[in-house]
């Protein structure tokens, strides 16, 4: 399309679109808005967003949060220096012994996989990667085609 036609088209489309009157809003819109406003106004303050809480409650909440945070930090510092803290950390370590076993299992499996990969011809590996990529692309294409078919069928009906 040459620039002259493009400019003419822009001007023409702009003229047609700008002359469009507004669409009529649904008759129930006003009622819906007022009903929703009434519903929100009837909610108790603790079910509204933080900005709608009473200012005293907001200040109290912030002060309480800061205090709770400080108490938690102080408590952790105090507890970590006691004998019972060492007992607690020892019992936690015992209960998490399965993690050590899992780590050993993963590292053993990884070692075996490395040996297997080293022994496999590289052509086989490229072939496997290619097959997976083709299957993935085919799945995406089928998904896209199905989605479009369903969407357009819904829009057409």
């Amino acid at each position: 399309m040459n620039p002259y036609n493009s400019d003419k088209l822009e001007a023409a489309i702009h003229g047609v679109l700008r002359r469009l009157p507004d669409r009529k809003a649904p008759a129930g819109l006003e009622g819906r808005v007022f009903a929703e406003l009434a519903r929100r106004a009837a909610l108790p303050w603790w079910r509204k967003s933080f900005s709608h809480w009473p200012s005293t409650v907001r200040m109290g909440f912030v002060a309480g949060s800061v205090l709770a945070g400080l108490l938690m930090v102080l408590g952790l510092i105090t507890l970590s220096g006691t004998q019972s803290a060492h007992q607690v950390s020892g019992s936690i370590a015992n209960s998490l012994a399965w993690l050590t076993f899992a780590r050993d299992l993963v590292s053993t499996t990884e070692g075996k996989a490395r040996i297997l990969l080293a022994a496999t011809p590289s052509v086989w590996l490229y072939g496997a990667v290619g097959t997976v990529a083709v299957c993935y692309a085919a799945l995406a294409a089928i998904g896209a085609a199905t989605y479009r078919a369903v969407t357009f069928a819904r829009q057409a009906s």
Partner: protein
Amino acid sequence: MRKYQDMVFTTSVRLVRNEAQAEDIAQEVFIKAHENFEMLSTSPSAGGWLKTVATNLSLNHLQRYRKRWKFFSEFGSDSAEEDAPAVEFAAPDTFFDSVDSDERRAWVEDALSKLPDHQRIPLVLYHFEELPYDEIAGRLGVSLAKVKTDILRARAALAKILARGDASFRILAT
């Protein structure tokens, strides 16, 4: 509210296309307006504020619910318009003069709604909301070149659809 509800609903429905979703968005716009009532009640630009909020909420809605389907919904969708012929309007100033307002509205709105999202949305933002190309690109998160191409194709496609029903359009195959 009565003064602006048609404008807010229209702004939203032209972007999201779905009337029920546009009504939900219009409701949210007026609830936000209620929250800012003190500022809006004395502002001469209340209409502009409502239009901007309606546009922003509509775009948020589109991005939230359609991003994940973008690939699927736009898959190959440009193919039909790749070779869009040049369109010439014989008499754009007098276009639709012989058609009454309701019929004209229905006709053009229907043509507009037939455009795919990636063409309709930038077209609406450009011609109705009067946003510049670069701002549309920024708002939609696409390149400036894509916005220009999509709007150009949208105009050509829209003219093609309108031309089917009106003799004042002449399609010049190039």
